[in-house]
């Protein structure tokens, strides 16, 4: 990136910049896409815990398929929905690794439901970041398992008809019913205050892994301005006015030890 050299007047100190775990590669996301914020929060957690040299990320199939470009960490790209099984293999083979998967709602809650549920039920000691943007981004805006009732997508052009396609899957609520998971929470990044809360949650999900507590999943409500067909600022209103009504924020399970 062409970092334009700017003269910083004396007396000023940097209080915010790019986390070290992020590479210089530009994101491949659309303008205003929340994937970018969530990705940065992961890098901040890696920096804060000092685990860059032992972290292995798993890129899913979806808009974040290029995730491996964005971090200075080892990475593997998994088949659509299989990230939790791949994470299981990595972590079981080498428990010293810090393993995280990053998955969209189609990846984690449709095609990968079985892999996700069973990794959670086994209490696998890795971290899952689950981006719930209520739509299939990469393939052009089709209905996701999390698409809201009445929401228009290219495969629900009249709006999601619950009589035809049922209701959104509240996978975090489902996972919170299981005995094994250490931490299941739903967060959002639609404003700076919530970004801070999401940051803390992601940090906790990684710290849990370091402490051997087992399966931690952070669901993050996100926008897909491109397929919502909304300007990015307006798409954020969708989160508070619609998505949060169906997917309330907060911790769903915190196993205290």
């Amino acid at each position, binding site marked *: 990136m062409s970092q334009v050299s700017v003269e910083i007047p004396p007396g000023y100190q940097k209080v915010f910049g790019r986390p070290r775990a992020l590479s210089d590669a530009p994101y491949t996301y659309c303008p205003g896409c929340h994937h970018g914020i969530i990705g940065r929060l992961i890098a901040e957690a890696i920096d804060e815990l000092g685990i*860059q*040299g*032992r*972290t*292995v990320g798993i890129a899913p199939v979806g808009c974040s*398929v290029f995730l*491996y470009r964005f*971090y*200075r*960490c*080892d*990475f*593997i*790209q*998994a*088949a659509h929905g*299989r990230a939790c*099984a*791949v*994470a*299981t*293999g*990595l*972590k*079981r*083979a*080498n428990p*010293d*690794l*810090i393993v995280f998967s990053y998955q969209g709602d189609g990846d984690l809650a449709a095609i990968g439901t*079985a*892999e996700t*549920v*069973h990794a959670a039920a086994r209490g696998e000691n890795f971290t899952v970041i689950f981006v719930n943007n209520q739509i299939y981004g990469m393939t052009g805006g089709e209905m996701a398992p999390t698409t809201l009732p009445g929401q228009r997508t290219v495969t629900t052009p009249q709006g999601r008809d619950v009589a035809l396609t049922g209701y959104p899957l509240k996978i975090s609520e489902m996972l919170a019913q299981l005995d094994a998971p250490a931490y299941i929470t739903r967060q959002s990044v639609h404003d700076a205050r919530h970004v801070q809360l999401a940051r803390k949650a992601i940090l906790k999900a990684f710290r849990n892994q370091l402490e051997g507590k087992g399966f931690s999943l952070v669901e993050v409500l996100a926008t897909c301005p491109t397929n919502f067909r909304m300007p990015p600022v307006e798409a954020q209103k969708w989160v508070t006015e619609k998505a949060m009504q169906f997917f309330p924020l907060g911790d769903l399970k915190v196993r205290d030890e």
Partner: protein
Amino acid sequence: MSRVLMRGNEAIAEAAIRAGLKCYFCYPITPQGELVEYMARELPKRGGVFLQAESEVAAINMVYGAAAAGVRTMTSSSSPGISLKQEGISYLAGSRLPCVIVNMMRGGPGLGNIAPAQGDYFQATKGGGHGDYRLIVLAPSTVPEAAQLVMLAFDLADKYRVPAMILGDGMLGQMMEPVELPPPVDPSSIPEKPWALTGAEGREPNVILSFDLSPQGLREMNRVLQDTYREIERSEVRWEEVETADAEIVLVAYGTMGRIAKTVVERAREEGIKAGLLRPITLWPFPYEPLRELAERVPTILTVELSAGQMWEDVRLAVEGRAKTPFYGELGGVVPTPREILSEVKKHVSS
């Protein structure tokens, strides 16, 4: 080294452990239950990871993760389960990750049955999943050979960074034979894997991918695969020949059928029929050259299979009209007796 009486399934499991297997992932299916049970019992005791997955899809993707971490890893199943694993196998091949997959074939298609069959030959040798890739496919016909080929499969997989498959069936899996197992491999003799995901401490990150959106880039990835496959074809073809020197008819059969065909050759010879056998040990790479050479001087090459004629296609590709290429096969898990095959042989020889 002592000889022990073992079932095929158990010998495969024990050989894998001795080959340095670290992570084994499975989903139960007959007829390879003893293999799973043996692993559950033995592998954790010997420092490995045994994990029963929620499906074959999950099991093969766990293999994908463990292989990426750089350890020796394996899964086993039977036909319907192997079908489910095809997605993961394609990813393993595309990402150049070594592993061993055992398929104890059963009757198909669909749920089929659990009887010995060889209907997965196409799936195993021609790709199985999507994309241009191959597996090294090893087809043991006895229990000792199964143990030996499992150890070889790990070495070849690591050497070429490809998945390798052991293709057997329930008859091999259940059969008990005395086996002389080699000692466990010295872990330090297993080659280093500098590409493995071990954490990027002090080095540039390693990235494991099976995709490249640019056609030029993906073509390059494919070329690396194809170059590897050509090298394997040059160096790793394995087969056994029995009584072929003066043969008038040569049977081609592998695995369980290869074993039965050996008996047929003995009986034929007792009756004065100059029969021989070529038994492919690697189904891929297929022994095209040795078969072609035989076809130069043997008038009849009879393929015998527990399928409708899948390997037969490779036999005909090898022979290319140089000899007659009749076929004898059974379907649905029915195993022909040596006598039945012998009478087929007699149809093709001038007495």
